[in-house]
């Protein structure tokens, strides 16, 4: 349907035309379609990471609906008589028995279970990688801070959702995970015991947990996730996508390909590619073979009890923590649990959530940003990100310290001690190294701008000197390499007013000045036009 500037009535002739006309007369969709059908999306592989999350979430919904049709969320005891003979005649919960039935007696059930679980891993991994992309490119800056917060909430909810789902089949590993969770809840000061009793309906494991987790897993959390994903996407759509710097790409435009048809085909195609890939994994690679683990019995345990990867950091932090506990005035404060399970993740996650606001405060930058930073051009931010990754990664590795021990012939104690040191030293070293690398890359960019690209052609001057010919960069590349901002640190000059009274908020201002020195004290300046002209005229190419 095209619209016409004249007042002539357009009479649709095709079926599609008639249908859209019918809808338009009731919903007025042509106005929205006019603006959005040819909406432009920029092309870059790193912009596809968020889509991986969206698609794996849709796959989770679809496969999850199938699973709910056959899963029995109950801790009631039954004696198994299904087709998996090694567990024939064993007492187990209905939840575990129905998961066995899905795996062995429902056609396609095992496939759906495995698709669901692989999709969950892809979902959380996708969120992590997507968040890192947003972080390292500064895409969280104004006006996208609120969308960062929505995304952050989605990350936390995804962890919660994953843990709830991992716990539902009531196998030996999931029960062990819940037992650890209960231990963590018990450690919360003052209210911990009460929370645990409310959560589990009394003593662990009780009889109500799985039905409750089921509601949380299939209704509460996915409902919120769905709502937040919708808000997240509306904001992306409304604020328009960021783009990389380049010729013709400015803060006031977005350059790319139109939604209809190119991005419909590319994004739609990507959905099927992701779904197909996960379906292939579901058909070819085993995941969570609960029949190997056996039903949960609270007195049984297996070596190598591990959570899914996204809980690995918490697990590793618990394993790493020294055994500090305070007993005083008739109360117990379990620092050995609280610090790794509550305090450290609390700080880490709060830091992640507020980082955009912190950086905005440091830079004092009030402009809208639609052009992405190359990570090298914000060395301190990039270094903070790397330090965070190192911190998280060491916790994560320590979550599998027993497997590392057996596979590399080390002792668990050695690995734990090494990690206890590395968790402090590693991020500092990562921070330092990353900044050095960033400065190096920035200097290389600067050289490229000033002296051109190495052509690989060696010439010999009449004096007999050898030199390589450098070809000057095309204007587009020059523009691209100098499109970034260079921030300077803040210096305080007037610390008191004319009457000698310290200025208000002085301490805050001093703090901010220090923060800017930390961020921008060391920097590589952009080449100026003058420098470029000098470099050209000196002829030292």
């Amino acid at each position: 349907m095209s619209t016409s500037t004249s007042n002539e009535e357009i009479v649709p002739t095709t079926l599609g035309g008639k249908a859209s006309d019918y809808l338009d007369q009731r919903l007025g969709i042509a106005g929205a379609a006019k603006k959005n059908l040819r909406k432009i999306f920029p092309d870059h592989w790193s912009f596809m990471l968020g889509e991986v999350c969206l698609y794996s979430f849709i796959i989770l919904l679809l496969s999850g609906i199938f699973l709910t049709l056959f899963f029995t969320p109950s801790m009631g005891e039954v004696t198994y008589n299904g087709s998996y003979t090694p567990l024939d005649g064993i007492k187990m919960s209905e939840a575990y028995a129905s998961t066995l039935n899905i795996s062995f007696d429902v056609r396609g059930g095992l496939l759906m279970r495995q698709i669901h679980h692989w999709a969950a891993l892809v979902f959380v991994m996708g969120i992590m990688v997507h968040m890192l992309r947003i972080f390292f490119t500064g895409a969280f800056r104004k006006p996208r801070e609120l969308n960062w917060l929505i995304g952050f909430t989605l990350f936390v909810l995804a962890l919660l959702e994953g843990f709830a789902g991992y716990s539902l089949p009531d196998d030996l590993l999931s029960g062990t995970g819940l037992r650890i969770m209960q231990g963590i809840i018990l450690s919360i000061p003052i209210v911990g015991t009460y929370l645990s009793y409310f959560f589990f309906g009394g003593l662990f494991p009780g009889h109500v947990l799985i039905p409750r987790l089921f509601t949380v897993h299939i209704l509460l959390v996915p409902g919120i996730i769905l709502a937040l994903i919708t808000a997240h996407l509306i904001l992306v759509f409304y604020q328009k996508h960021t783009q990389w710097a380049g010729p013709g790409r400015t803060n006031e435009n977005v350059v790319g390909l139109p939604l209809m048809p190119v991005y419909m085909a590319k994004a739609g195609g990507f959905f099927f590619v992701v779904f197909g890939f996960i379906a292939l994994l579901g058909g070819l690679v085993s995941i969570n073979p609960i029949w190997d683990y056996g039903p949960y019995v609270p007195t049984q345990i297996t070596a190598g009890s591990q959570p899914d990867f996204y809980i690995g950091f918490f697990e590793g932090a618990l394993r790493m923590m020294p055994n500090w506990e305070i007993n005083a005035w008739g109360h117990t404060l379990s620092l050995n649990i609280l610090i790794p399970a509550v305090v450290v993740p609390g700080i880490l996650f709060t830091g992640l959530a507020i980082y955009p606001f912190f950086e905005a405060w440091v830079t004092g930058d009030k402009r809208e940003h639609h052009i992405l930073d190359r990570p090298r051009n914000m060395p301190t931010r990039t270094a903070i990100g790397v330090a965070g990754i190192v911190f998280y990664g060491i916790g994560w590795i320590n979550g599998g310290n027993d497997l590392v021990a057996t596979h590399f012939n080390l002792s668990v104690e050695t690995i734990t001690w090494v990690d206890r040191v590395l968790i402090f030293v590693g991020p500092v070293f990562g921070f330092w190294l990353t900044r050095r690398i960033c400065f190096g890359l920035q200097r290389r960019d600067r050289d490229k701008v000033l002296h051109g690209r190495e052509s690989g052609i060696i010439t010999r001057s009449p004096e007999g000197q050898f030199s390589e010919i450098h070809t000057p960069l095309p204007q587009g590349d020059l523009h691209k390499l100098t499109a970034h901002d260079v921030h300077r640190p803040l210096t305080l000059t007037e610390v008191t007013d004319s009457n000698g009274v310290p200025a208000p908020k002085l301490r805050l201002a001093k703090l901010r000045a220090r923060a800017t020195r930390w961020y921008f004290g060391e920097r590589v300046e952009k080449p100026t036009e003058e420098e470029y002209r000098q470099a050209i005229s000196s002829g030292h190419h």
Partner: protein
Amino acid sequence: MSGDMTHDEGHGSVAVEQEHGHGVVAENPFADPGLPEHQPRLTDIDEKVARKSERIVAGLFILSALATIAFMVCYTEVPNNTATIVDFFPIGAISASNFALGLTLGVALFSMGAGAIYWARTLMTDVELPQERHLLESTPEDKAVAAAEFQQGLEDSAWKQRPLIRRTLIGAMAVLPLPALWILRDLGPLPGTTQRQTAWTAGELIINDNSISLDGTQGSGIKPEDLQVGTLVSASPAAVLTAGDNAVNMMTMSAILLVRMNPADIKSQQEIDWGYEGIVAFSKICTHVGCPVQLYEQQTHHMLCPCHQSTFDLSDNGRVVFGPAARSLPQLPITVNADGYLVAKAGFDQPVGPSFWERG
């Protein structure tokens, strides 16, 4: 290195700072040459190549349809049972049904997606178009109008003139969500002292976990002579056999381990006294977060928790020698009854399992 530092668009607004030396160099010394000219692809200029592309896309869509049909055929034709398996390198023996369904579904979806993407990449336009982007901030006029409208609404409601209404509304709204918490009270019972109790009392018979029948109602006791030095037995109180629905909760709190050591190896007199001829009983529940600790090394007497590697020395009152657990494993005093079976001499002298606030 000198730079242009006059541009200070990005300044903050802290009162005392002088923007001396601080600022953002945002302007680009090199003018924007504009979008480069579009370069055609082979498919744009050569119809033969374009037609080949078209055939590839159509081929992928046909493959998808065929795989979809194959999926449905496999659903009915490949038996779904533990005996029908396929075995090939490098994956090994796997369920034939799962393999066939996963492969066909995967191919159906993947080739559908690959077809669409290939189509977009080769036959749809790849001319990059710029679209204008407007600042998100509203114009001052719009802001003023919005503020005025809001003010008008506020005045129409008499919100300011009627503080009584304002305050009571805010107060009432503040308490209104509380029932949402209140109503959750019946989620579970109050802890009381249940977190401190186990099923162990003086004379409670110790049951060998390995002897408990599959239905959980039969089990047999243990005599001291059943254990050699170095023997490990997981055990439970006899009460679990008759606890019915409550058996699982009871086991969780009351699980113990029996170990027989050479009494000479035991470092603590109390541990010897609470044991029986070198047989000692310890809680099986880790004092860290409650996993069953059961990895007993009979030469070192170390007991390791597989969850977080807390290590307890069973020859020394269950003392923590490594890992995050803060407290020793509680020991259960044991003796033998008239029939010669091992029984508890008394209950635990402290709560077992993870710490909690009220534990003290």
